[in-house]
């Protein structure tokens, strides 16, 4: 009973500590302290991962992120916030995920259905609708985006998501990916062009033009 009360008190104390103190405790062998880090940053990691990874694989990638953070904890140098350090690990885990699964998760061209085409027509005609319709539209928009992103290489996908879709500055994207600023600039430009070309193929007018050319 006393031990449980002590544990609870200790837990409360730990949760009040700064990140650096908690990391020290983990490195001294107190594994429970790592749970405090997870409590603090799991939402941030999930938010980041959910921008890059399909819904059903997010937990897996977030899991890998924390395991990798734990195994590399001794390399944390306190030069920046822990949140940023974890974000770097999360982005690299997402990149690794796409490098491993790029081929097997490619969505076929036939996955663009009539519903998606209706969504495109709806966007182009600028109709406003009720919440329910907007929810469906949201899902279809995501699916179209996933369809287009699946046609990019893992490198292109990561860089276009960070710079164009998430709107991060080039320098920050380079830092998260561990690439040079120049490489990110070049890749971001190319990837965006490629994404635009893919989306333009879905447009009704562009589709007709393609058919005519054939």
């Amino acid at each position: 009973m006393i031990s449980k009360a002590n544990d609870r008190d200790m837990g409360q104390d730990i949760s009040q500590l700064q990140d650096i103190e908690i990391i020290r405790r983990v490195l001294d062998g107190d594994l429970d302290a790592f749970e405090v880090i997870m409590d603090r940053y799991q939402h941030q990691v999930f938010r980041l991962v959910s921008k890059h990874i399909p819904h059903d694989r997010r937990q897996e990638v977030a899991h890998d992120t924390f395991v990798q953070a734990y195994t590399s904890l001794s390399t944390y140098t306190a030069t920046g916030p822990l949140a940023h350090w974890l974000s770097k690990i999360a982005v690299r885990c997402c990149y690794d995920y796409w490098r491993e699964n790029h081929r097997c998760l490619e969505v076929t061209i036939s996955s663009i259905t009539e519903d998606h085409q209706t969504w495109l027509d709806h966007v182009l005609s600028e109709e406003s609708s009720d919440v329910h319709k907007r929810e469906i539209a949201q899902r279809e928009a995501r699916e179209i985006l996933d369809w287009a992103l699946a046609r990019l290489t893992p490198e292109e996908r990561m860089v276009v998501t960070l710079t164009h879709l998430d709107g991060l500055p080039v320098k920050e994207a380079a830092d998260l990916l561990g690439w040079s600023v120049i490489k990110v600039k070049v890749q971001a430009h190319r990837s965006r062009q490629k994404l635009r070309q893919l989306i333009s193929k879905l447009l009704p007018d562009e589709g007709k033009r393609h058919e005519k050319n054939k």
Partner: protein
Amino acid sequence: MKKINEQLRKVEAALLAAHRREDEAQINQEWQAEVMFHIRRLRPVRGVVEETAIFDRLLWRFAAAAGLTAAAVCLYFLFTGSGLETDIEKLKLIWDPVGFLAAQALIS
């Protein structure tokens, strides 16, 4: 072509809005327990947090600039003369009009 560009802009804006809409992160306790279970099975990680790393990084960041400045100052004095003798002469005239010994001792 202009029409297609306009359409593309609209679709891109809609896709961007869909991407930026926050998804609610559904995290359950089981997931956290699984991660901790995995971590507990790993070899314990040992080490120390290097808090001086930030100073090291700053030191090296300014090292090149400091080196270049020192080299430039040396070159400047090499080609223009340091002016040490003139300064000593000035001191001598202002503060020590008759005592040359101190100045001579410094020069030699």
